């Protein structure tokens, strides 16, 4: 069974590679390369896989999941300039692809129990663009 919980955060970022010139960055990333940054309302969907506990009827405690998402992701990402304030984006470009991988890496140690294993991370940068990561094996 799959269970998905949503969370939201708002953050700014700039997409630039330090190894590229100004004009190369502009060509590759367009408006997203503006060095002053720009922002999005990100929507995160975290999907877990598991079987319901025969006693509680729940795969896992959703309150606990909400707390994990808040503590491990939202409190770290929300209202931050990702490039300057959230590791590893001082040296990794905060594209939605890399954000999905980073959120997966943050959540995996907390969502690997026998009940409710991390299955996938979906991050919406806008309502019309989302990225999904299912871990190394996916």
């Amino acid at each position: 069974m799959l269970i998905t919980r949503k969370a939201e955060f708002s953050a700014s970022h700039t997409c630039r590679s330090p190894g590229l010139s100004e004009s190369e960055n502009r060509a590759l990333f367009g408006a997203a390369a503006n060095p002053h940054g720009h922002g999005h309302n990100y929507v995160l969907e975290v999907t877990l896989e598991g079987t319901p506990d025969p006693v509680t009827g729940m795969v896992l405690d959703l309150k606990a999941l909400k707390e994990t998402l808040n503590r491990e992701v939202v409190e770290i990402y929300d209202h931050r300039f990702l490039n300057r304030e959230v590791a590893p984006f001082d040296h990794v470009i905060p594209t939605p692809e890399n954000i999905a991988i980073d959120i997966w890496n943050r959540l995996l140690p907390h969502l690997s129990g026998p009940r409710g294993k991390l299955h996938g991370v979906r991050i919406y940068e806008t309502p019309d663009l989302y990225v999904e990561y299912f871990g190394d094996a996916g």
Partner: protein
Amino acid sequence: MIEVTRKYRFSASHRLHAPQLDEAENRALYGKCNNPFGHGHNYEIAVTVRGPVEPRSGRAVDAELLDGLVRRQVLEPFEHRNLNEEVEAFRAAVPTSENLGREVVRRLKQNWQAVFPADWPRLERVAIAETSRNAFEVSAHEIE
């Protein structure tokens, strides 16, 4: 591997009518969708692409290249058209969402190499929503 999905919209009209069936059978099968004058929808399509994150750019797909491909192959030929009469594929096939999804995959696959000549990214699937209450997904592997 990462999957990136982009959503696009277009508005078009169509009529569901199978020439192999008679009037009464078409009416029974397709109901209101068989109205001889046609009717329209605001279609939403979601195009999913799969690939590794390229280290230089931090991205799995250049979204602008994907947008251009979808715009040329799907949005421009379908936008504000009568699908039955103005899109070649639907002279022979009923423009259901199922067939529309297959046609979108076919068009993207046929023109993929010209835009994305490398091994990755690859087209993974296309989802079509005729209205917000239904969705049809076609895997890229289903279509030649």
